[in-house]
């Protein structure tokens, strides 16, 4: 599989960078991760869960710490289980208590991070884990690429079967309920999916910036989209464009890939704001049409 990809890239792009396997891996990683983040970001914003995903990202540190305590070689599984618990806990607490989501998340989030830092900094050894803060996309292995492909498939399946329910819940839980949607179940599944993806991606993207990757493409798409279809298409395109540009610029400049991608995303975001201001808006024409229609039937 991976050899096929390598030879494809070498024949398509006869450039110096294509000689390195790590670049070919990273390119494939960007092609897999960008749609995941683009798609997920749309509902993260619509559900106002930006702070939630940020919290889960930071709490990955705690997952790592617990993995270290338990003496696991690869802390990913511990991180995933911990993230699922955290996501479930926040979702549950949000429905049970009257406190706003921000407060609930703030309480869980800071505590989890503190716990992680306390454990990891024992005997002054925190520096060993600082790689997780920035992440390294170029370190991705073919096996991890397979994992990413499975994750992308999972997101697409979730979006095919559960998207409408999630969408209704984000608009009004009671309306969703009256349509036979199990609100808590849908919220829980989405939170856990989100937590998994953030946790899996953390080692390549980094704790500090993962949330921007999730939020920026969708936020930019929101400036231009008039309906959900365009929102998704634009979010994925913007995410891919920023991912690819960021990867190559980081190669040229020798900078951290994830952070470079975020900067490009932000430039695109600014671009959508400018475009929105300049473009004659469709929506402005519509009210006039309404008026004409209403006059026709008094």
């Amino acid at each position: 599989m991976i050899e096929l990809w390598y030879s494809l890239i070498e024949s398509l792009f006869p450039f110096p960078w294509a000689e390195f396997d790590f670049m070919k891996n990273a390119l494939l990683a960007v092609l897999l991760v960008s749609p995941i983040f683009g798609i997920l970001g749309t509902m993260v914003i619509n559900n106002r869960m930006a702070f939630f995903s940020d919290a889960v990202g930071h709490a990955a540190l705690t997952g790592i710490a617990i993995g270290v305590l338990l003496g696991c070689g690869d802390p990913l599984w511990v991180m995933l289980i911990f993230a699922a618990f955290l996501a479930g806990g926040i979702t549950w607490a949000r429905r049970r208590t009257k406190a706003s989501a921000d407060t609930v998340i703030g309480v869980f989030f800071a505590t989890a991070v503190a716990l992680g830092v306390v454990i990891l900094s024992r005997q002054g050894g925190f520096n060993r884990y600082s790689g997780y803060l920035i992440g390294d996309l170029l370190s991705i292995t073919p096996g991890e690429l397979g994992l990413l492909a499975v994750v992308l498939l999972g997101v697409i399946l979730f979006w095919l079967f559960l998207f409408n329910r999630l969408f209704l819940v984000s608009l009004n839980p009671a309306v969703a309920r009256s349509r036979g949607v199990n609100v808590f179940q849908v919220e829980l599944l989405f939170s856990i999916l989100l937590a998994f993806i953030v946790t899996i991606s953390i080692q390549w993207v980094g704790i500090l910036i993962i949330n921007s990757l999730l939020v920026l493409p969708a936020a930019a798409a929101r400036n231009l989209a008039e309906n959900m279809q365009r929102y998704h298409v634009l979010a994925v395109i913007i995410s891919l464009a920023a991912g690819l540009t960021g990867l190559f610029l980081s190669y040229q400049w020798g900078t951290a890939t994830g952070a470079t991608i975020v900067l490009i995303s932000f430039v695109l975001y600014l671009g959508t704001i400018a475009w929105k201001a300049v473009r004659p808006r469709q929506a402005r024409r519509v009210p006039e049409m309404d008026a004409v229609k209403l006059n026709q039937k008094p």
Partner: protein
Amino acid sequence: MNPRRKPEKKCDLCCTRLERLEVTLNGNRLLYDVSLHIHCGELTGIVGPNGAGKSTLLKALVGEIPYGGTLSFLDAKGLRTGRPLVGYVPQRLDLDQGSPASVLDFCSACASGFPVWLGPYRRSRRRILKNLARFQADHLIHRRISELSGGELQRVLLACALDPVPDLLLLDEPSTGIDPRGLDIFYGTVSKLRQEHDLSIIMVSHDLDMISRYADRIVLLDKTILATGTPAEVFQSQIFLSLFGPRWTAEICHRQEAAGIIHHPRGQSND
């Protein structure tokens, strides 16, 4: 998502029954001992002071918050019993400005399981247009929901809540933020639908004037049912006087006399 039901002939027999409904959240008793029979074709108005549990009652009926007691629906022929099919029209949606959800997106998500992000499903699109047209909202179909005015949004929500035709339609403060013209369209259509589809409607409202004009029955609620009866009966009751003061009673009775509105028994038109 629900199977579509054909509108049935007027029956007078089917009813939705609440028995000793109670809601307790975090140790607070929000509602207790609420028993009501709602016959089809009847519009029940729920009034009460702030914090009386009116919206809580609607949310319990939708199933969004857990409740004790029973809620059952009895079909005219006794064929279908169990939980009623509920249509719910909230006061507003939880959208922020600039959310890219269009009216068509919302209606499609209600009407079918076909994922909205793949674009509108062609087969439900015509039905959605027809539903919206009944409320003079078909021209809004491509607008973002967040850009609609209060009245436009109410009409869109109502159009979606009525497909499939529910056993019980719940309206939460439908008159908030609607101009007089929009109100007339809204209540006019609701009255018409009630007769066409033999709908049971429960409406929570602070607009005592409107509710006295359109409701067949008023329930005065403050954690439990304090009074129930025709608008004139309830608005003249002692307990209503003590909660809302004499001004309202006098005003409503005066207006009703002036407008010559007499409350017909259910089944006859008010118009």
